[in-house]
């Protein structure tokens, strides 16, 4: 049981996709203008990550080595399109906010990375747990980044405004994204990398 739990916690801290593996940087930087956006993007990625991990661990034994990458990409692209259609149907507002970055989950290195490094040589259950762990790790990082940027940039948290007027606009724009990520990474190094 402990080993199952450690699969999940590994994804959150030791193999944190954002701060340790430094994967999936594009949505991390682009969609974290507010805490809510970051959270939504993280959950969307987690959805694809879990499904593709399960499915790939199922089919991995029968897929010939030479074509495994194209097959994985097709599988991931299928789940991403599935997510796209579902989001358009049921949460069109969220889809409109995240825009291009939903189809781009296909090329998020985290998803293909976990398929290659974990799902294709582990059991279905372990792959599911890995998907959950890494998904939570990614979602947490994006939310934290979103929270910091929203506090500094708009003076609010999850849309709740605590100062009148504007924040420091640069934090909502591109430079702030890089700057906050840089500082958070340094902080992460201080506390988790000995």
């Amino acid at each position, binding site marked *: 049981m402990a080993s199952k739990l450690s699969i999940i916690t590994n994804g959150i801290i030791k193999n944190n996709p954002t701060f340790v593996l430094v994967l999936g940087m594009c949505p991390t930087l682009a969609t974290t203008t507010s805490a809510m956006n970051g959270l939504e993007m993280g959950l969307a990625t987690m959805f694809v990550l879990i499904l593709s991990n399960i499915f790939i661990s199922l089919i991995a034994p029968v897929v010939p080595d030479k074509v495994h990458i194209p097959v994985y990409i097709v599988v991931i692209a299928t789940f991403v*399109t599935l997510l796209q259609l579902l989001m358009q149907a049921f949460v069109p507002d969220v889809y409109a906010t995240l825009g291009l970055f939903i189809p781009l989950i296909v090329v998020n*290195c985290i998803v293909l990375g976990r398929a290659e490094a974990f799902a294709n040589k582990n059991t279905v259950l372990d792959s599911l747990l890995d998907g959950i762990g890494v998904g939570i790790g990614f979602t947490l990082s994006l939310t934290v980044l979103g929270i910091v940027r929203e506090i500094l940039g708009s003076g609010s948290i999850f849309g709740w405004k605590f100062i009148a007027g504007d924040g420091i606009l640069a934090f909502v724009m591109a430079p702030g994204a890089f700057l906050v*990520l840089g500082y958070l990474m340094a902080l992460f190094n201080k506390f988790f990398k000995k």
Partner: protein
Amino acid sequence: MEYILIIVSAIFVNNILLAQFLGICPFLGVSNKLSTATGMSGAVCFVITLATVVTYLLNQYLLVPFGLDKFMQTIVFILVIAALVQMVEIVLKKISPSLYQALGIFLPLITTNCAVLGVAITVVTKEFSFGGSAPHLMNLGEATVYAFATSLGYGLAMILFAGLREHLAGNDVPKLFKGLPIALVTVSIMAMAFLGFSGMV
């Protein structure tokens, strides 16, 4: 005139790396050395332009007529890009083994460089208006110029950044900031400089 606006906009104003956040992973990954950064930029430049033209045509003449663009676009685009990257890899292996060696694992990773898929999807879905013209979807000519200019912008940011990073390597950086954190802070300042171009087009 419109083409010039597209080029200026794609290279400076809406720089793909510094304003649109596409293709960041290889940007941080291979920008340690100027020479690899240049090679990577070249490869990306070639792949983006080629992939955009091919996917644009496929979308226009195959997916849209059959009503498949709503749900097959992502799969078809990514497969075409993957195939093109393989091709570039084979060609590069033949004509420049040293460059091939330098780029190492990053060449296959162009497939998962979201700049390529991002530009391909953008040109067929997003409406543009340059210099006050009525907003419209791009035609093939505009799409090609846009893709090429965008990849030039990618190269520009990448090479500038690699140059900065080479200097950074010899500096006394606080321990916690060594490596990526200080690199990100540097990109932040570059992005701020590029913000100066905004509103130009």
